């Protein structure tokens, strides 16, 4: 029996002091509130004033869209412990559904098509996810891969989705909300920002509720959760449904607000992996993790290409860049999983602790 105790002790030994980021407290302390308020202030006030259109269009907007996808995936994989490899497929469904609803339903407000895009993603998600959510293990990964390949095939094959457009690529509709045209970099940025902030706030609230705790319980010990009365299947389905919805909205953002075109190519398997990497590096089961991860993923290729050109000159072409990106990304993932499984979010917490001038409380 004592070896079992040792095993359990090994599991319960802390790698670091309990992180506030991981304990969904019922009430957050004032420091976190001020922190969030400051970030929001900067995001709404400073950024539009000082950021160039390039920064808005090429960096911040994709950052927001990817971060949102990350928030959605994190809910499913980080909090509820169900691995999905098909996030991009649900983003694609969201984008194309929103486009088609917008096109074919006259008088539908823009935000309405956003919501319908998200709901369509949920429906598709549940269709693929249902067979495997009843089971444990890697089955959901296989299901979501099925969704990934099927959705990409269907969207490319059936020209109805692209309104029979010859090139298979379509333009996003004009961005008009409540009569105000948002078709400029600042407008697009604010639209994306508001949607992302809203959904993130709701998710942050959700993980602190009993439902959110149910997600964590199913992740941490599905058997015990079942025994105490959590309906495990319903919990997993809910996590999957909400996560797909958010991924759908992120897809609409990606297509309507960032790229301004809607095509299947950008929603491939690599994109799904990218979102997964975002939350692994950023920090699983944290809300801010998706943002840290997305920031890294968006900025990283730019940095790498500059650095590569500096160090290696013309040998460092786009092929080399692609491959180096893969290697560094892979190394980052493995390193984070080994050294800091709680990702950048945890590193950030530690940094804050070091910088704070309050004495450490004795744990």
């Amino acid at each position, binding site marked *: 029996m004592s070896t079992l105790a040792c095993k359990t002790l090994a599991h319960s030994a802390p790698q670091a002091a309990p992180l506030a980021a991981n304990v969904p407290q019922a009430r957050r302390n004032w420091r976190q509130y001020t922190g969030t308020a400051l970030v929001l202030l900067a995001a709404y006030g400073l950024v539009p004033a000082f950021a160039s259109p390039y920064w808005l269009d090429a960096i911040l907007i994709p950052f927001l869209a990817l971060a949102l996808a990350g928030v959605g995936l994190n809910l499913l994989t980080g909090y509820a412990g169900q691995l999905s490899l098909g996030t991009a497929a649900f983003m694609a469904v969201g984008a194309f559904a929103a486009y088609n609803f917008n096109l074919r339903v006259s008088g539908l407000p823009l935000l309405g098509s956003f919501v319908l895009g998200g709901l369509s993603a949920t429906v598709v998600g549940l269709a693929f996810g249902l*067979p495997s959510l009843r089971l444990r293990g890697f*089955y959901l990964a296989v299901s979501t891969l099925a969704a990934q390949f099927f959705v990409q095939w269907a969207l490319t094959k059936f020209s109805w989705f692209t309104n029979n457009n010859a090139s298979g690529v379509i333009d996003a509709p004009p961005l008009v909300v409540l009569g105000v045209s948002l078709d400029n970099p600042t407008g697009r940025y604010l639209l994306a920002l508001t949607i992302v902030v809203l959904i993130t706030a709701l998710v942050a609230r959700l993980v602190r509720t009993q439902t959110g705790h149910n997600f964590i319980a199913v992740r941490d010990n599905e058997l015990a959760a079942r025994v105490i009365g959590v309906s495990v299947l319903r919990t997993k389905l809910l996590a999957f449904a909400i996560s797909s919805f958010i991924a759908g909205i992120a897809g609409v953002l990606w297509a309507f607000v960032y790229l301004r075109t809607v095509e299947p190519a950008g929603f491939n398997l690599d994109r799904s992996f990218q979102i997964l990497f975002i939350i692994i590096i950023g920090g699983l089961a944290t809300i801010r993790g998706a943002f840290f991860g997305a920031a890294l993923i968006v900025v990283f290729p730019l940095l790498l290409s500059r650095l590569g050109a500096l160090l290696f000159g013309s040998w460092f072409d786009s092929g080399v860049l692609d491959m180096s990106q893969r290697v560094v990304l892979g190394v980052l993932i493995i390193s984070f999983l*080994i050294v800091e499984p709680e990702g950048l979010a945890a590193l950030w917490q530690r940094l804050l602790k070091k910088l704070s001038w309050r004495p450490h409380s004795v744990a």
Partner: protein
Amino acid sequence: MADFDFAFLIEVLVGGLLSGVMYSLVAIGFVLIYKTSGVLNFAQGAQLLFAALTFVSLVERGLPFPLALLVTFVVMVLLGLAIERTVLRPLVNQPPITLFMATLGLSYVIEGVAQLLWGTQVHALELGIPDEPIDFHGVLISQFDLFAAGTAAVLVGLLSAFFRYTHVGLAFRAVADDTFAAITVGLRLPRIWATVWATAGVIALAAGLLWGARLGVQFSLSLVVLKALPVLVLGGFDSILGAIVGGLLIGACEKLAEVYLGPYVGGGIESWFAYVLALGFLLVKPGGLYGQKLVERA
């Protein structure tokens, strides 16, 4: 129905089965690692690509076939050992989902390094098999497919025998069954796992050569591994027999679907059919045909 082309049906079926044997070979690499360490090694495809690229590049640089094969063999074994040491061992107590994600990262590293080392162009891999089809009673069978399937079948047979009849194979199975008990009887886990990963590397080499010869050595080779996942769902994640039967089933059904159902929906269903088939299977027989029914010790 009188003029239903049975010969063609057989042709398609045989082609699918031969394909299936090759899937089985890849799937067995998965089963090997999953059975003994509970890790679903997503990097199997990357290892496949790495092996094929290394071999083909050595041959192109003038190394004779057997020497290139030997060098690649050694490289793959070393790679397998390195993976076990640097990635798996530090993560040994983590939940399966973490390990899977680590292999995901690993696949990126291996793919990237392979192509940084050897370049991103497509290479043709010549194994010396003529490409003319054999005519067997009116049914055309690709010689290459036959050879590949034959080789794969031999390897599969060898591996099964290995598992069953050798000491090392027995040790693998012991570790797979009950890691704790295996330690108790004195089996050295790190050594076993190192061997497992080295073996998986060798399987990747074999599969890489066969698939590379068939499809050409290019980046998409690493995606072949993805087809192994439906095979595992059908056959059970921890059964070699299941990998064989599952591979055959998937290979055959996929080909048949592409040829007979494909035209109705515009073709190209090979990209997803295997998965949807696996999904459907999950509704009916979740454990897979031969997967062990795990008894939960609460």
